[in-house]
């Protein structure tokens, strides 16, 4: 058991799902040719004036409602001043004292125990541009020159800052998953880390148990997946433990995570630049968020994952585990409910989705929205099993065809002759053959080793190419052996 308590806070940037940028009408579409989505405003040309995107504000407030934030009646933008080549204006328009949302919270479940994580604030700000560094490493330190693409400047970001309430890398991982799930449910962001629409910086420090004040925090940047956030935090926990154990002091710094090495290294940049001289943005006016506006936005709020999860347990009688897995992604939960509308064997549907469908989709690198198995066909498969036309073992074979050929399970069963053998006489014949071929196992069973019956069942199933009804095989086999 460690002597130290781990203190973690997360800063998550999500790109809001708008068609245009935060302060101008340029497109936010990902992957366009460099510098083709630019205009005087996002290039920072002199005299150009920003005008706030209403949709971005609405999405920020919608997020605020979903995460139980207090929505500030008056919200304002500020300039954050610093020089960097991806920031053409020399300042970023952000929010300091009056963000749209303050004091939110998010519930996570860790080892079966629920825990509430405070969220300090959520504020709107504009993104910066993208830099490409010359040289074979592509790293900034080795580059003689760099290229700048300003398509991304001014794209709307919501920065969601948690309280330092997380106590382990595992909790941080859970928090990120729960947050992403909610953001996707309410449709405010794609949360696609590969496209940069969700980014995460982590702050971490350790302190001896019982100590009230925090030690200086280390900020970890450059982390591009939730798994990497967890790995980076685990590495930092070990590194800082070693520091404290050897009597060294940790100090406030920014470190970069390397996914290949699994380590963090100190950034060389000077720390002096942390003086942003914020002041109110004079080119934008105050935002007065009225109760009526909030009520209007509230109407677009959908059922959130935690609520849906409980409903899956009560309405469909699913185990907590199934409900959690299915509702973690809105798309899977929607898929389940379409199926559940067609067939009432909810647990069987859940099993097929969680076992076969999720596995095949993952292996094929496909999204549920592109699933070759449509709910109608998945439900047909459930019916084929429930009516004893095929065994659940054969269902696995059928499912493979359903996935690979987008096939109708009824067609697969017909075409391949997979109908279950439920005729007692036919099953009995197969059993007789197996018993005749395996006198040793039969003798063992008769000497009292009941367990070997499993072996015989397996042989019968194999002999019938998986088509014999397992229930029937068990029944007849026992009858014949007791004679």
């Amino acid at each position, binding site marked *: 058991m460690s002597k130290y308590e781990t203190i973690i806070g997360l800063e998550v940037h999500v790109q809001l799902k708008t068609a245009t940028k935060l302060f101008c009408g340029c497109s936010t579409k990902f992957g366009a*040719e460099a*510098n083709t989505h630019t205009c005087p405003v996002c*290039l920072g040309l002199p005299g150009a004036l920003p005008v706030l995107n*209403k949709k*971005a504000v609405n999405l920020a407030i919608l997020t605020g409602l979903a995460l139980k934030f207090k929505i500030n009646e008056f919200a304002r933008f500020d300039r954050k*001043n610093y020089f960097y080549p991806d920031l053409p204006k020399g300042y970023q328009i952000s929010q300091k004292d009056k963000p749209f949302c303050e004091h939110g919270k998010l519930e996570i479940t860790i080892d079966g125990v629920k825990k509430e994580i405070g969220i300090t604030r959520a504020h709107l700000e504009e993104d910066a541009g993208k830099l490409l560094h010359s040289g074979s490493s592509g790293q900034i330190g080795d580059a003689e020159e760099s290229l700048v693409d300003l398509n991304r400047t001014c794209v709307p970001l919501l920065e969601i800052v948690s309280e330092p309430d997380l106590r382990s890398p595992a909790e941080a991982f859970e928090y990120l998953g729960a947050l992403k799930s909610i953001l996707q449910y309410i449709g405010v962001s794609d949360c696609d880390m590969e496209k940069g629409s969700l980014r995460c910086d982590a702050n971490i420090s350790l302190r001896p148990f019982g100590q009230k004040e925090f030690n200086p925090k280390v900020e970890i940047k450059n982390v591009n997946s939730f798994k990497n956030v967890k790995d980076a935090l685990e590495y930092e926990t070990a590194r800082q433990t070693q520091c404290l154990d050897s009597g060294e002091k940790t100090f406030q710094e920014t470190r970069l995570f390397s996914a290949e090495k699994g380590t963090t290294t100190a950034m060389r940049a000077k720390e002096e630049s942390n*003086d942003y001289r914020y002041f109110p943005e004079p080119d934008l006016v105050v935002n007065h968020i009225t109760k009526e506006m909030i009520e209007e936005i509230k109407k677009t709020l959908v059922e959130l994952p935690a609520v849906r999860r409980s409903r899956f347990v009560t309405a469909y009688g699913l185990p907590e585990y199934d409900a959690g897995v299915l509702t973690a992604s809105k798309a899977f939960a929607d898929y389940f409910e379409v199926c559940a509308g067609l067939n009432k064997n909810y647990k069987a549907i859940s099993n097929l989705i969680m076992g076969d469908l999720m596995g095949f989709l993952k292996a094929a690198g496909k999204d549920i929205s592109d699933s070759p198995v449509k709910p109608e066909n998945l439900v047909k498969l459930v019916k084929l099993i429930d009516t004893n036309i095929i065994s659940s073992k054969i269902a696995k074979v059928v499912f493979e065809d359903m996935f690979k050929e987008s096939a109708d399970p009824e067609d697969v069963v017909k075409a391949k002759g997979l109908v279950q053998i439920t005729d007692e006489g036919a099953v009995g014949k197969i059993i007789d053959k197996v018993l005749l071929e395996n006198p040793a196992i039969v003798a063992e069973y008769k000497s009292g080793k009941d367990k070997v019956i499993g072996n015989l069942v397996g042989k019968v199933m194999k002999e019938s190419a998986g088509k014999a009804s397992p229930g029937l095989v068990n029944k007849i086999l026992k009858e014949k052996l007791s004679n």
Partner: protein
Amino acid sequence: MITREDVEHVAVLSQMKLKEQDYILFTKQLEEMLKFVEKLKEVNTDDIEPTASVIPLKNVVREDIMAASFDRDIALMNAPDKDFGHFKIPKIME
């Protein structure tokens, strides 16, 4: 009181390289600005709400509708250097 260290700090933030005589000049000028602010502080503002903007407007927003962007050649027209449709800039990290 503005010190030489203050001017050095501001110079770093502004990415400016100052000459020796600049430090003397700017220390004096910044000091004068602060004195002016001190003068303003004499005004009684007890009954005045903190003001971030004097523009008598609120909630000025636009709909999320696409507008024309620059042609890339125009966007890059005034760039000191360019390559592959990008702005090209010198070494960032010393």
